[in-house]
């Protein structure tokens, strides 16, 4: 038996088995940002419909439904915050909004976050939770992978730290772009992390996949994440790494 209040008190982690339930973007921000330190940027960016996409419903209707459900304009929240006392640019994805899929808005907000981190020489922290690129925006969504990665390449060249946290689930085009490229890549215990959906993979080989396939611990063993960090230690751990990295070009006069 698991009580909701108890779950909230323990940051969405089961006290018996340690299972990490999905966190919404708001709870994630409360968990990571220092109290009252977060100020949101680009909150009003919304998606247009580049393809005039219709499946069983028109795409604009799907967006409107997701906006009504989540109270957000798209699947990511970006802003400035301090994490364990370190000023950062923070971006948190929201899986509730169309499976956290990346379309033009997610791509644009991640790119702007990276560009602001570069301009202000502040570390960038991205918490990923996404099913991948947003089908309804077609190749325009695919191009967001190139757009975000190009901005991160500039950030890396300037020596500004970039930390990614992979949460349940992080798959497809988001993992195959910015989520994999952190200087430090952390993952939450048990999170599903992979390039292709497990169903596709098991159909490819025609057999069932072993338990633990594409879980955070699987990626740790194979060398694609630095650490699997329990949720209650996440903030402190990010703070540790950011404090250890001196940002190149940052004004150090006051620290002398």
């Amino acid at each position, binding site marked *: 038996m698991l009580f909701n209040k108890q779950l909230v008190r323990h940051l969405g982690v089961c006290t018996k088995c340690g299972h990490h339930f999905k966190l919404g973007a708001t709870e994630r921000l409360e968990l990571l940002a220092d109290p009252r330190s977060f100020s949101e940027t*680009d909150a*009003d*960016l*919304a*998606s*247009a*419909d*580049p*393809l005039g*996409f*219709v*499946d*069983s419903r028109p795409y604009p209707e799907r967006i409107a439904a997701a906006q009504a459900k989540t109270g957000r304009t798209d699947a990511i929240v970006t802003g400035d915050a301090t994490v364990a006392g370190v000023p950062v640019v923070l971006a948190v994805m929201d899986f509730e909004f169309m499976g956290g899929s990346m*379309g*033009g*808005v997610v*791509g*644009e907000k991640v*790119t702007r976050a990276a560009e602001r981190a570069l301009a202000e020489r502040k570390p960038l922290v991205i918490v990923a939770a996404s099913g991948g*690129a*947003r*089908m309804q*925006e*077609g*190749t*325009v969504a*695919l*191009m*967001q*992978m*190139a*757009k975000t*990665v*190009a*901005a*991160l*390449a*500039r950030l890396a*060249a300037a020596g500004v730290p970039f930390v990614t946290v992979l949460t349940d689930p992080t798959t*497809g*085009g988001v*993992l*195959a*772009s*910015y*989520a*994999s*490229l952190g200087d430090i890549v952390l993952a939450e215990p048990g999170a599903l992390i*992979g*390039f*292709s959906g497990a169903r*596709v*993979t098991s159909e*490819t*080989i025609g057999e069932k996949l072993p338990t633990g*396939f*594409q879980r955070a611990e*699987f990626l740790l063993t194979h*060398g*694609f994440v630095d650490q699997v960090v329990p949720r209650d230690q996440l903030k402190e751990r990010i703070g540790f790494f950011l404090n250890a990295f001196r940002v190149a070009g940052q004004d150090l006069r006051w620290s002398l």
Partner: protein
Amino acid sequence: MIDRIVGGLRPPAPGSAPSNGHLAADAGLILDSSQLARGRVTPWEAVQTARNIARPHALDVIGRVFDRFQELHGDRSFRDDPAIVGGIAELAGRPVLVVGQQKGASTEENILRNFGMPHPEGYRKAIRLYGLAEKFHLPLVTLVDTPGAYPGPEAEERGQAESIASAIRAMSDLATPIVVVILGEGGSGGALALGVGDVVLALENSIYSVISPEGAAAILFRSASEAERAARAMKLAAPDLLELGIVDALIPEPTGGAHTDHDATARAIKTALVAQIDRLSRVPVADLLSTRYERFRAFGTIVEPPSEAPAPRRRWWRRGRDLLLRTRI
């Protein structure tokens, strides 16, 4: 309220120059979908043509377009992936580096080439070759033709996503001219790992999509047999990509399609490549990199309300007067 639309959509406004106007001097390219000689085929026909097993694949094109191709093998860490081929060759007398995804022309060859679906080591080989191109100032030509990156368990174990992300990053700031040609199928992230360039060209009957039409149908309509319907919705055919600005121009195919005449197709590709590499080689590398950044930066149609400028603050005596008036009432 739509106050600002930031977009990669073309044409931006009637009367203004199309964003691919700089390619206009290059003979033979299709710069506007209205120039298509035979009109447009249905999206599903486009998918079938792009996948035709008799279409010229990377090595067919390399053999006809370039001279003295010398293949380079291996990622220096795991193995040589036959689904990606690459090496150094001459294009009209100029040494270039070419990397392409290789499909087979028969079942046996397709098994060897894994149907053109690269493993992570294939992308890592590509990254190694991109590095050579930059180090020795060779223009880079990539040939895209894949159903997608291989989705098998061993590919996951070896970091398929990380290898693709790294390949995209390597291309995005590679200090040498890059021309991308989409030969047949551009399957999602697995194609984009070879798809970031200064100029992106596509053969007239090629396709490029975020997910295969079968995959999209399985998710959106819960049935893979609805692929035809999904293909219509996805705008994946080359003329659609031209209209969206995803590709800069189309390379015309011979009547009947590229599979009917490999030589003629290769001639058209060669004409386009020579013109593009000539033009790009004269651009300073710093300009090349910033233009490449802006090219991809522009994608994504979004709606942004105007940033609300704070109302000018009233002078202190007016604020005082307002306060007094309000208290009197």
